[in-house]
């Protein structure tokens, strides 16, 4: 299951470029565009600040879409093959989620490496394992969320809806692009409800050593949410009828 996900990923070259291209564009355009203003405002190096946000964004996109891939599997009939196999639904969800999450983390890493070329410097290379763990948590959370959504929707029509009303708000209102500390109160409140904020914050904490919510909160929220969403996703998936 897990292997299939990876094979599919590496086999579609267009997808790799497409999905790495966008975050890189964000990174370069926003990073260099806002950089000077950011520095003038006394906030320091914007690329440093932005990179963890963009890494999180690429993980969010990739993981969520990997979950939604179930809709495609259903469309092309492959889902049935999996559903009649003597494997419990729970195992299928775990396999799928981990597969999608691995791809997402891999993508996040590529972004991280690319960012280093344009001036991103992580504070300490030894924090990398912790960064990976956080990335994996974020990835599993959203792959599971995608799975849950895909289990309920049975066509691609609802897909645009998700893009506009879920993915974009999650990303823009997460503190990925701007510091939460000084943003207006209502943005801070929204960001507090937004699970992605904690992912961005934790990752920024690892790379730069500063957090908004604090490490423990970040990891606790991420961990608990991941567990909850994963169970809901598995439950919904187990209810699928073809």
């Amino acid at each position, binding site marked *: 299951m897990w292997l*299939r996900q990876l094979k599919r990923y590496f086999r579609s070259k267009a997808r790799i470029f497409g999905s790495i291209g966008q975050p890189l564009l964000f990174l370069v355009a926003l990073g260099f565009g806002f950089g000077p203003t950011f520095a003038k405002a006394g906030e320091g190096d914007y690329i440093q600040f932005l990179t963890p946000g963009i890494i999180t964004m690429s993980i969010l996109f990739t993981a969520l879409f990997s979950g939604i891939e179930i809709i495609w599997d259903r469309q092309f*009939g492959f889902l049935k093959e999996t559903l009649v196999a003597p494997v419990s639904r729970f195992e299928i969800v775990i396999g799928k989620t981990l597969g999608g999450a691995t791809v997402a983390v891999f993508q996040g890493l590529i972004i991280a490496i690319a960012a280093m070329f344009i001036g991103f410097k992580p504070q300490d290379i030894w924090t990398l394992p912790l960064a990976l763990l956080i990335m994996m948590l974020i990835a599993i959370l959203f792959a599971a969320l995608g799975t849950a959504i895909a289990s309920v929707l049975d066509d691609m029509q609802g897909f645009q809806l998700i893009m506009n009303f879920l993915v974009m708000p999650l990303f823009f209102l997460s503190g990925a692009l701007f510091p939460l500390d000084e943003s207006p109160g209502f943005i801070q409140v929204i960001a507090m409800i937004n699970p992605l904020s904690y992912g961005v914050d934790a990752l920024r904490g690892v790379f730069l050593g500063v957090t908004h919510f604090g490490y423990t909160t970040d990891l606790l929220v991420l961990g608990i949410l991941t567990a909850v969403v994963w169970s809901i996703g598995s439950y919904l998936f187990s209810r699928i009828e073809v």
Partner: protein
Amino acid sequence: MLQTIPKKCSMMECMENIIEVKNLTKKFKDLVAVDDVSFGVKKGEIFAFLGPNGAGKSTTIKMMTTVMRPTSGEIKINGFRPETEAHQVRKSFGIVFQDSSLDDKLTAYENLKYHGILYGVPRADLKPRIEKMLKFVDLWKRRKDVVKKYSGGMKRRLEVARGLLHHPEIFFLDEPTLGLDPQTRNYIWKYIKNLNQEKNITIFFTTHYMEEVEQMADRVAIIDHGKIIISGTVKELLEQTGKETLEQAFIELTGRDIREEDASAVDQMRNQMRH
């Protein structure tokens, strides 16, 4: 090589039904798709399920293969109940779906390997078995091709190979020859017949082609509006209806109306993709 065709089953085995369906009903909101259906299929038998579009054939198969929950009624597949013993039921059968269910981004070999792993075929057995099955359906030379490049007939053959990889007791085929040319149809049926005779695998299939039923099936059930109208051997059906061909009997029993089936969400999506 001269070989006597092995007897299909011993007396004892012939007595037991490997598929047992009792009072099966499935309701969707206001529609009764399958209405109090009962039938049995003996071990080693080739059983045909005939009916117009939307008669409830696929729904019945879905319930037997654990992907849909029945509203009421009882099913036993190889002695196990799909609702409570899904695992054992799933191990007992192989299936070829109405429409392709291959992963077209993987190669033929990878598709089979994935299936083998899911079904818990021992690692050591997996390679030789895949090789044997691919040779059996004449696709060994193309094993490294991505399925996307395959023709419709090749995909079907690959699906047959895949459905048999884990040595099932029962083989479900939901309109296996739909949209295939006569050559490929013959080819596939030759395999299936062979398999049935050599390995004593029970075959349960649905089709619209009457000649396939006349040539292949030991017994037939005709289903319409969710109910089984008649069942028995082809000969019995002809005698009961007083017709000369199965096609005439079929039309007599199910009427001449053309059935309309709502396009499923999936079909709608496919149509959109074509544009």
